[in-house]
């Protein structure tokens, strides 16, 4: 078995660019390099045509029309534009926004910023499985509510929210519905019509496209959504996002969407098989391992597991030739354990032991088997080193211990 090390299993962070995407992009650097906004020569026309083609490819993947796609620099910008842009545009209608606690920071921090400017934000809790309760949502809506912003699928635990049901509620109550679709689009079917989504953030680099390019779907009818721009200038993108378009990036984004459109069904099945192989391998050889979040409503390529009694950073150190992420405080910039796991009611002790596995298009069965072997070996070794494992095996109830913390 010859596999290339290190193994990349961090596909929720970013994905490698598909070679077919790179190939599609290359001519747009050196030959078709025009500014898509140049209206009076062939260089501009060709660039514009390429952009419009990409717009169609992206729209098709989410069942939108090309004119509803606004290009941005990535999903962080898309989330900012959707939330702040809608808040400003509809300020007279109301000042209330509803979101939920496991959103990405690009959404949470945009909401927090608006709170400083007098907006009110409701942060819905999640159930143990990571999904919001629809009754909580119904109760939270007031006549002042202008926007509901809920992610399609979570970046840490892969849990998929009941988007179609939320969309229905939003439509009934006349509230705009924004969805951060970064982890879901291209991985599972996302349909803005069926799901009643009014605003949808997407990015290229999570679907084997280039970094630095994203889009915001902005619904044009039933209802028409308007946004106040965050970036002013030449009035590009229907005035919602000025700035010269990143033509090669956009071409790559379009190509990446086209590939997802054609291969998503098959690829999702393959991801699911690899994920089950990974899960079964770990669960059959280790005790005291716990899945974080719903296994039913989950992206096919995600697995998030707590390995009790083994601290996440030390586990990462032991499997250094496998690229994954941990919810351990020691691996985060803030030195706090994952807020997502905390929201699920996962104790901080278990949050410190969590690992996120993100499978992708280029992973193989051999890589999964290698990962299982390495993780089992390292967890076993570190448990031999763990006083907590020893105490648990002796029957000590760790939750009742008086710990002398610093």
């Amino acid at each position, binding site marked *: 078995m010859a596999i290339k090390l290190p193994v990349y299993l961090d596909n929720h962070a970013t994905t490698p660019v598909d070679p077919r995407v790179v190939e599609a992009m290359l001519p747009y650097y050196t030959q078709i390099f025009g500014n898509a906004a140049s209206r009076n020569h062939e260089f501009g026309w060709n660039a514009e045509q390429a952009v419009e083609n990409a717009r169609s490819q992206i729209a098709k993947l989410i069942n939108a029309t090309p004119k509803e796609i606004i290009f941005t620099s990535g999903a962080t910008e898309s989330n900012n534009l959707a939330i702040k842009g809608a808040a400003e545009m509809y300020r007279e209608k109301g000042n209330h926004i509803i979101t939920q606690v496991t959103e990405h920071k690009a959404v949470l921090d945009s909401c927090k910023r608006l709170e400083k400017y007098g907006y009110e934000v409701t942060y819905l809790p999640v159930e143990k499985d990571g999904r919001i309760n629809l009754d909580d949502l119904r109760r939270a809506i007031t006549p002042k509510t202008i926007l509901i912003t809920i992610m399609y699928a979570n970046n840490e635990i892969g849990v998929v929210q009941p988007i179609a049901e939320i969309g229905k509620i939003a439509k009934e109550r006349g509230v705009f519905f924004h969805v951060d679709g970064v982890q879901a689009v291209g991985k599972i079917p996302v349909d803005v019509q069926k799901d009643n989504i009014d605003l949808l953030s997407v990015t290229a680099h999570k679907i084997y496209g280039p970094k630095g390019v994203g889009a915001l779907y902005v619904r044009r009818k039933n209802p028409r959504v308007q946004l106040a721009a965050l970036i002013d200038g030449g009035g590009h993108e229907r005035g919602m996002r000025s700035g010269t378009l990143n033509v090669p990036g956009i071409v790559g984004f379009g190509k990446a969407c086209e590939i997802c459109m054609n291969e998503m069904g098959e690829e999702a099945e393959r991801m699911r098989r690899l994920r089950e192989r990974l899960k079964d391998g770990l669960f059959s050889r280790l005790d005291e391992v716990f899945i974080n979040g719903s296994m039913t409503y989950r992206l096919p390529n995600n697995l998030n597991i707590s390995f009790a009694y083994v*601290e996440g950073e*030390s586990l990462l150190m032991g499997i250094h030739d496998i690229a994954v992420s941990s919810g351990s405080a020691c691996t985060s910039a803030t030195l706090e354990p994952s807020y997502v796991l905390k929201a699920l009611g996962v104790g901080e002790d278990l949050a410190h032991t969590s690992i996120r596995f993100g499978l992708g298009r280029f992973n193989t069965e051999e890589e999964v088997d290698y990962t299982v072997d390495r993780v089992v070996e390292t967890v076993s070794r570190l448990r031999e080193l763990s*006083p*907590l494992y020893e105490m648990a095996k002796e029957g000590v109830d760790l939750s009742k211990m008086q710990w002398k913390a610093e």
Partner: protein
Amino acid sequence: MAYSDKVIEHYNHPRNVGSLPKEDPNVGTGLVGAPECGDVMKLQMKINPQTQVIEEAKFKTFGCGSAIASSSLATEWVKGKTVEEAMKIKNTDIVRELSLPPVKIHCSVLAEDAIKAAITDWKRKKGSDAPAAAEESAAARS
């Protein structure tokens, strides 16, 4: 985060992993940290009551690589030292030896605490030495 060679060396080949019998009157056990904080160290030493020399030391640690390395190093350092000498080991010595970055200094503090806790436990077991032990422990903290 990049680890120093010494941290990696201790992580890959931790010294003196294991447990000593807690009930043994000559064994002191220090258990410090908390699972919620992501670090728990258990350090045990077997001390000769006549010579006060630490004859054996064992550890088990739940924590990051730096925590494992700090406690592994602590067992290496206390072995063969007298109780009095071991009490003088400072967390800053551990930081220097392992080249720990600022965010990992608490690992070395925990290792120093574990040494002191184990010695305090041993002194408590000695019973008659209890007042002295409490005094010494208080002095060490100041």
